[in-house]
Each structure stands twice: as structure tokens, then as C-alpha cells.
């Protein structure tokens, strides 16, 4: 995939991956051997007919190809960018056995962008109105997927979002250089065009409860997709010093509030000279790469295991390294120090070594006694994971959760209460956009069956 050169992109917010040209797309599409039993489809959580859309590319019918994807996914331009295809469809591609998989995600992005650039959207077939009303809580990938599927089935769909912008983690979490906001907004507009209603600034659990939605507001079913919005901290001494952000706060200040454009925008973000990002998941990578774009001298990622165990997508890790982010593997913080005005100035870290596999199956990271040393920093971003926000769970009687507060569902997304479904990170814990979309799709199917049987 052609990309902006690392030295240029590390200081700008323009999209990193430039996308295929028509010629490149055709070359790539030709690599698909159109297998008799296309295994790639079974790797797609939203069941896109991949060989079919690739055949349309070969016929140079790019809009037709995009529409084939849209039969199953309402968000092709988003998925073409942020889906981990290498673990999904591309992992099952026959070409991957002997060499390199067809770049399915890149082709998806190409046709979706082609369609978007030309505004060549056609109205999908929408079933006759069912007069059933469904509330979707949260406007992230899981809800957007369910919204598209349910609207096409003829239901009246309302999406409630707590923040002022739509998209959930796609808006506040994933940075502009991985997912331009114009792309997100275009996909949301397509949903509005098929009748999906969006209500921002409405916190379910506060402004309205789930029970009020189902009784007073007259919704026939509710889908909970409130994500993993509760940041975890390390509970180490000094962690509440100024200059120590959760990854959520750091990314929200920039992605949602445009802190990188202060003072044109009022929300500030302060970046020092030496930034440490704690953790090495996808959120940590996003935080580190956003930090680099704000202009510090150095950005370090501090991770207690080694490069081999990094949980982030390989492409994100490669991109981060290319952009000059430095990695301190086998290192873990133990405490933070600050100056008299309460701003962080450094931390103490301890060296680790790998031990026997732990419960997660990965080698345990074991501290090496006496290896504590200091590490100067003036900005710290804590990216050690997120849990589910408890606002809905704590105000919905009879809703079963597990010990981490995640909502418990069956395979169809049904919770412990009839008519109440859930999916995405609030069920899975921190997971991926495409698995959240798969949940939205499954829940939409189950909600449809439930509503049409009653």
C-alpha cells in the first residue's frame, strides 16, 4: 500500500496510507484466483462476498463492486482502512498459503473511495415498513452496522450517542491520519439517507434509562453497544500528576476536541519534549503516533514484554517504528515524579524478563530485582487498556454482567433481558472494529427475528 513517507507524515495529520491507484487496484485484483470454495468469505465477520466484488473490479465496475460490499457492510470505506484483514479474510486467502494474500482490504478501500469521490451511491432496497422501533445505544462500529441492517429490513432505527459527534471510537479514538473524518461522516450520511435517526448528547443511563426507552419512549428492542470507554490506570504513586493522561483523554483532546489546533479551538493539549506511552496495544500505537505529530523531541513506548508479544496490529507497529517512535521493551514503570507545580518530570522504571507462560498464554513479564532506574519524561500517556463504562449496566435492573462489568450475551447478542441485545466492546472487552461490526450484524438478525415473531 502506498504511504506518505515517514519523515513527512510523522509531523502531519493527513492520512498515512494513500490508497491504490486504479492501475494498482487492477493489478492486485488479478491476483485473486476466484477459488471454487472461497475461504476468504468465512474469515469475514460480516460475510462480504469477496470474490464477487473483486470480479467487478476486474470488469472495471468499481461502483458495482462497492455496492456488492454494501449488501453486507454499511461501512466499506471505514473497514477498508481499520479492519485487521490480515487476521480475517486475508488470513484465509489461498494465496496466503504460498506467499502473499490478495490485498482484500486495500481493494475494499479503493472501491469505497471511488464511490465516495463520485457520490455514486444508489439507494439500497429497503423492506416495507414494519412499524417496529429499535434504539441503538452508542454510535460506534457495532451500532452503525446494526443500524444499516435494521433500517434495510424496514425498521425505524434511532441511534443515541453520549458525545457531540457520531462514530464512537471511530471519532474519539482512531486518529484522523488512519481514518479521515470525511470518510466517517460520509458513511454516517449514507445511513441517514436510508432513514436512520441519530441523537447526539444523550447519555443512556443518565438522560434516559434503558427501561424508559422501552416503556415511555416506545422502543420495541434496544441494542447496547456502549464500547469500552472506561480507561484503566496503573495505580502507581504519582499517577495523578499533571501531564499524565489516559490514552482516552489524550486521544479525545486531539481527535474529538481538535486540541492540536489550539488556540483556534479552545481545548488545549500540552506535549512536552519527551513523551512516554505506557502499553503497546492498538490504542497505545494511536496515542504514540498522535503524540509524535504534536512535535515533541522523542516519543517512547514502554512495554513490559518484547517486540514479539506486542498486541498491536503488525502494520501499526511498523508504522510507529518508521515514524521514529522508540521502544523500551522489557520495561515497566513503578512510580512517577513531579515538580513543585505538580507536573510530571520523570518516572522510575524496572527491567523485566520473560518467564513461564501466564494465564493469557503469553510469557509472563517478571521484574528483575534491583534493576530500577530513572527515565526522564514530561508527558505520560497511560494506554494499558479500557473497561466497559458502567452507566448503562448500573441503571438497568436484571442485566447480567461478568466480573469485569461486561454485558453477558448469548451467541445472537441477546442479554439476560428479552428485547435487550448487546455487542461490541461492551460485551467483548477491548476488541476490534470488525468484530464489533460482526456483533452488530448478528444482533440485527436476532432483533429482526424477535420483532417479527411478536
Amino acid at each position, binding site marked *: 500500500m502506498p504511504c506518505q513517507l515517514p519523515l513527512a507524515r510523522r509531523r502531519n495529520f493527513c492520512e498515512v496510507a494513500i490508497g491504490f491507484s486504479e492501475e494498482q487496484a487492477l493489478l492486485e485484483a488479478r491476483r485473486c484466483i476466484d477459488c471454487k470454495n472461497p475461504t476468504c468469505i468465512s474469515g469475514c465477520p460480516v460475510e462480504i462476498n469477496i470474490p464477487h466484488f473483486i470480479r467487478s473490479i476486474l470488469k472495471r465496475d468499481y461502483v458495482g463492486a462497492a455496492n456488492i460490499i454494501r449488501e453486507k457492510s454499511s461501512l466499506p470505506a471505514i473497514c477498508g482502512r481499520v479492519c485487521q484483514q490480515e487476521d480475517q479474510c486475508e488470513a484465509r486467502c489461498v494465496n496466503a498459503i504460498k506467499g502473499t494474500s490478495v490485498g482484500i482490504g486495500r481493494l475494499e478501500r479503493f472501491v469505497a473511495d471511488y464511490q465516495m469521490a463520485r457520490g455514486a451511491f444508489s439507494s439500497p432496497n429497503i423492506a416495507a415498513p414494519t412499524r417496529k422501533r429499535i434504539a441503538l445505544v452508542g454510535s460506534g462500529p457495532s451500532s452503525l452496522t446494526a443500524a444499516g441492517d435494521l433500517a434495510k429490513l424496514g425498521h425505524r432505527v434511532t441511534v443515541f450517542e*453520549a*458525545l*457531540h459527534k457520531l462514530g464512537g471510537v471511530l471519532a*474519539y479514538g482512531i486518529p484522523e491520519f488512519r481514518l479521515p473524518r470525511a470518510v466517517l461522516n460520509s458513511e454516517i450520511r449514507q445511513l441517514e439517507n436510508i432513514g436512520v435517526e441519530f441523537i*447526539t*448528547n*444523550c*447519555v443512556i443511563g*443518565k*438522560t*434516559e434509562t434503558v427501561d424508559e426507552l422501552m416503556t415511555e419512549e416506545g422502543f420495541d428492542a434496544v441494542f447496547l453497544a456502549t464500547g469500552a*470507554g*472506561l*480507561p484503566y*490506570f496503573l*495505580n502507581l504513586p504519582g*499517577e*495523578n*500528576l*499533571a*501531564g499524565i*493522561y*489516559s490514552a*482516552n*483523554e489524550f486521544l*479525545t*483532546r486531539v481527535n474529538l*476536541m481538535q486540541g492540536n489546533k*489550539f*488556540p*483556534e*479551538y*479552545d*481545548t*488545549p493539549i*500540552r506535549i512536552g519534549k519527551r513523551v512516554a506511552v505506557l502499553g503497546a496495544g492498538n490504542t497505545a500505537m494511536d496515542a504514540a503516533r498522535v503524540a509524535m505529530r504534536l512535535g515533541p523531541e522523542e516519543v517512547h513506548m514502554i512495554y513490559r514484554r518484547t517486540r514479539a508479544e506486542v498486541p498491536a496490529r503488525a502494520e501499526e507497529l511498523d508504522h510507529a517504528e518508521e515514524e521514529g517512535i522508540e521502544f523500551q521493551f522489557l520495561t515497566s514503570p513503578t512510580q512517577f515524579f513531579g515538580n513543585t*507545580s*505538580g*507536573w510530571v518530570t520523570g518516572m522510575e522504571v524496572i527491567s523485566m524478563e520473560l518467564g513461564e507462560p501466564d494465564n493469557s498464554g503469553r510469557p509472563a513479564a517478571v521484574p528483575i530485582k534491583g534493576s530500577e532506574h530513572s527515565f526522564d519524561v514530561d508527558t505520560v500517556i497511560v494506554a494499558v487498556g479500557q473497561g466497559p*463504562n*458502567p*452507566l448503562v449496566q448500573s441503571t438497568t435492573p436484571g442485566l447480567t454482567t461478568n466480573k469485569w462489568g461486561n454485558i453477558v450475551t448469548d451467541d445472537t447478542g441477546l442479554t439476560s433481558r428479552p428485547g435487550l441485545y448487546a455487542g461490541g466492546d461492551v460485551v467483548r472487552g477491548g476488541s476490534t472494529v470488525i468484530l464489533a461490526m460482526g456483533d452488530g450484524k448478528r444482533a440485527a438478525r436476532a432483533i429482526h427475528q424477535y420483532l417479527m415473531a411478536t
Partner: protein
Amino acid sequence: MGNRILDKSAIAEGIFRFVIEAPRIAKKQKPGNFVIIRATEYAERIPLTIVDSDPARGTLTIIVQSVGKSTRLLNSLHPGEELLDVVGPLGHPTPIDSFGTIVCIGGGVGTAEVLPIARAAKAADNEVISIIGARTRNLLILEDEMRETSDELYVVTDDGSYGTAGLVVDPLADLIFQGRDINTIYAIGPIPMMKAVSDLTEPYNIKTYVSLNPVMIDGTGMCGGCRVVVEGKTRFACVDGPEFDGHLVDFDTLILRNRAYAQEEKTALERFETAETVRFEGLV
């Protein structure tokens, strides 16, 4: 979309009362709840306590003192204009019961936050003693409203320009020394005031609630920017508060965290004032 400003009135120097349209929130508001407001596309999200609500009209009352850029921007708006985003009601409601005798203390614009608590406490059959204070007479707010809902009202100003000269802790100390049987205290105002009240009442073991005002962004527990230290533990003021037991709050950490963006706040304010000047001169 947007929330229309229906009414605006000056209640003291640089302090305005707004009545805004927000039907869903008005239906749900309880004393102690707050809203997050983003006035324009470029504005910050800032938390403001809901002073009153009218579910039938679908309106909320908020009171705003011009301090930095965001509050000045709000106070420059007029009836008929819209606030881009208003979300709430957020935070836990104030714990109110029939406690017996309670004291409501409001310092500066904190009186706006104490008023709904005093009203609810009165409605719950408490004897309500109130103490309100301000730096100077021109900054004192809601005296009539507080008098109406209180069995006793003490008014103080730092400079003695109105009421008794002194701080809000002074009448409270007198009440305690007189041996009044105070069950619960609600103290809302500047951090040093809330700290002083908490320090005074701790040895007497009088339950003292304070309302914390850290920097906040989303207000729903998503960012952790508003974290405060209570009983040695990190809590999020937006979802765990905003009211906490004053005897357990680490006020020093709160003061330092609230100063984190002092430089940026100054920059934003200067830029705003320059723009205002340009606009004004443009009219002349």
C-alpha cells in the same frame, strides 16, 4: 439541534443567569446534577451545575461567572441564540434526607450550586441554616432566594462591603462553638473555602459534602481527566462525584491539577479579548 437560550439576566458583576431549552434533561434533573456545555464548534466542553429546572417548560437554569475564555464566551451570548451542545444530567445527585439541622454554605458563584440543595433539604423537612459569601458586595448572588429557603441566613463579604466582614467559615465556627446540633454540611465554592470548611468540621465529626470542579472533558467517565484523590484512591469526579466527603478529599492534588493549563487558559482569554476589542471597534 442546539439548545436555545430563552432568557438571560445579570445577577451580579460578570455573573449571568441563563434559562435554556433542554427538555430531556429538565425532566430528570436532581440537585447536585450538572450539564456539560459546548457553546460553539470551537469551544471546550465545560461542566456547569444545574441551578434549577422546569420540566413542564422543558428548561434549565444555569449561572455563569466570567472567569476565563469559555465562561466569557457563554456570557457574551444572548437570548434567541443557541448553545451547540448541552448534555446531562450528569453526576450523582446530592444525598439529601431528613437529617435534622443542616448548613448550606456557598462561596462566590458556588452559591448557585448550593441553592438547589438548600431547597431540596428544606423540602425534606430539615432545619436549613445557610451561609453565603463573596469577595465583595457586587459579586454576591442569590441572597433573596437563599433567604427564602433558609431558616437562618448569614451573609459575609471578604472586604466587609456587605453583611459581616469575614469568610464563610466564621459564622460556621460560631454555630459550632454555640453547640448547635449540626448533622450535615454542604459546602460549595472555591477550593480553599471548601478545604477550610472541611478542616474546621473534621474534629467535630460533622458530615461535610463538598463539590469538586476538576478539569473535565466528556463528563461520562470516558477520559479520566477529572480524576481526584479521595481517601487515597483515584476517583472520577464526573461519574463518582461531583460531591465527596470533604474530610477525605486531597485538595492539594486538585489545586495542582486545576492549574495544569493555566498558561493555555491565559492565551485563550487574551485571544478572546483581542477579538472582542476588534469586534467592538468595528462597530464604532
